[in-house]
């Protein structure tokens, strides 16, 4: 697979704020690549640089080997689905989709075929002559997708395209987006603050924080092997704990023993920071001599979350099924190696 979009050491400041600080990424042809992070992490700034609405102070952006850093948005083979869709309110769905092709000077017949194909692709044939104000949120979103895709962009940028919709519709459209991508095969760059969206849709994710890229990886590896404490905490829930290496594992500050996963080794005695996933901890009935007490029980449907406290440490533990322990119950804890990953100790 080729690298389609290459971002090389890009920086952008707004006054004293470093919105993007020396960011480098390379995005492959045809993949769904997510920029994931909390608000203010720089993901939207980066998207605006890719679309051409803004220019970096340093660094370059290449598309298919060509430097596009200084190219204005109208000359980039890149199209955007905006967060609020930004559909033209004075134009119908059909005219909205035709906006780009008309400017590009397509012939009448070419235009009609392409628009009909797009309308079919996003299932809006029956709404072709509606104005945006008459559409539901999901229909607006699909119109925005069609309006961008009809231009056959090399890269489609999506700026939190589902943020304005309710949960059920969001889950539904996520599936539609994935199947749409399989059909058109265009490179998608998807900006979101929602780790669930990013995890379920993306081939690869760049987790961003304070203008920097913390880690770029496939969703599963991001979850299993987070490179930093920020990534571990941002992708799903986790317990971040300190300990000291001994043979076969780590003795944590509160006396609990955490086995290290296969292939991960640490010299005995070195101090370490770990991420322990809540679903890889086991709760068992304990006695009064055990230090652990259940502080909080949160029923979550298919699973139950427990907050367990003891020896100055607070653990989040997730078990399948309904609550099996009541608040105040004495328990024993066990850590499974599959949920453990090593974090760099400094800087977090």
């Amino acid at each position: 697979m080729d690298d389609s979009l290459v971002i090389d050491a890009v920086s952008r400041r707004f006054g004293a704020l470093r919105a993007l600080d020396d960011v480098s990424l390379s995005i492959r042809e045809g993949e769904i690549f997510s920029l994931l992070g909390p608000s203010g992490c720089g993901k939207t700034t980066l998207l605006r640089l890719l679309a051409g609405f803004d220019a970096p102070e340093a660094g370059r952006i290449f598309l298919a080997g060509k430097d596009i850093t200084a190219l204005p948005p109208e000359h980039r083979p890149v199209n955007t689905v905006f967060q609020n869709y930004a559909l033209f309110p004075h134009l119908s769905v059909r005219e909205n989709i035709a906006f780009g092709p008309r400017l590009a000077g397509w012939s009448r017949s070419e235009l009609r075929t392409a628009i009909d194909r797009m309308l079919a692709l996003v299932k809006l044939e029956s709404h072709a002559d509606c104005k945006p104000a008459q559409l539901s949120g999901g229909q607006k979103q699909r119109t925005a997708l069609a309006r961008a895709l009809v231009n056959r962009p090399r890269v489609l940028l999506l700026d939190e395209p589902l943020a304005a919709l309710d949960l059920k519709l969001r889950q539904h459209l996520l599936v539609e987006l994935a199947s749409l991508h399989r059909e058109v095969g265009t490179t998608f760059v998807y900006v979101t603050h929602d780790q669930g969206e990013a995890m379920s849709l993306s081939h690869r994710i760049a987790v961003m924080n304070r203008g920097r890229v913390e880690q770029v990886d496939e969703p599963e590896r991001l979850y299993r092997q987070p490179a930093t404490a920020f990534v571990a905490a941002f992708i799903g829930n986790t317990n971040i704990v300190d300990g000291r290496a001994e043979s076969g594992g780590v003795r944590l500050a509160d006396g609990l023993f955490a086995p290290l996963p296969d292939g991960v080794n640490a010299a005995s005695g070195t101090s370490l920071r770990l991420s322990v996933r809540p679903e890889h901890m086991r709760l068992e009935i304990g006695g009064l001599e055990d230090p652990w007490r259940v502080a909080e029980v949160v029923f979550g449907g298919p699973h139950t979350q427990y907050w367990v406290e003891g020896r100055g440490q607070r653990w989040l533990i997730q078990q399948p099924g309904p609550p099996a322990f009541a608040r105040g119950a004495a328990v024993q804890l066990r850590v499974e190696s599959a949920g453990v990953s090593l974090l760099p100790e400094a800087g977090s």
Partner: protein
Amino acid sequence: MKRSRLPATLTALVLLFLNAPLAVLVLNSFNASRFGGTWEGFTWQWYERLWQADEVWDAFLLSLRLATATTLAATVLGTLAAWSLHRFNGRLQHVHRALIVLPLALPELLMGMALLSLFTALHIPTGPLTIWAAHVTFCISYVAMVVLGRLRDFDTHLLDAARDLGAGPWQVAYRVLLPLLLPGILAGALLAFTLSMDDFVITFFVSGPGSTTLPLRIASMMKTSRSLPVINALSTLLLCATFLAAALSLRLGRRCTPPS
């Protein structure tokens, strides 16, 4: 609970207060009495007199030409002013804003005197051209304010979207910005036309010989009671034209709102 009659009564009184003068004016235009104090029978004679009053029609045509020219210039300049006020954030923008608002706040008397002093100082003879310049000066402000109001609701992402889809700066203005601002621009233009058509105070200062606009002509006719009923007839006709225009713009406005 019994509903109070006060709001209905109050509304009726206010409407009466606002519209009674107009009703009296319309009635008097058909009144055979010259002074309009008592009803002396129905007549068309004031309308016939008006039809023959060339000086009134000359004034009317001059006003119409001035208002059209004023509307054209003020709409373009006012829209551009609104756009630059909305779009750019310079250090001088608050000065710009103040200068735009100033003519709205300034007493017309002062503005008229100021314009006259300027034209005299520059040795520009007063006439249709100076009236036009004066009208454009204050109409810009009204147009800018109306368009600015429309711009506040404008989603600037639409401009990004247009560029993203391949539109250059001019195409963005022509295909997205203008169509969406059009209702505001038209409203501003209508306002400018009306203001120019009936301005008296400022026009009084900057008009010269041979440039008598309709309001000036009416004022001079008021001095002689002989022509008072003719003015009533003229006013009635203007009233009808205004109602027609208002009805038309309402209908146009309705057509623009999307059916839901």
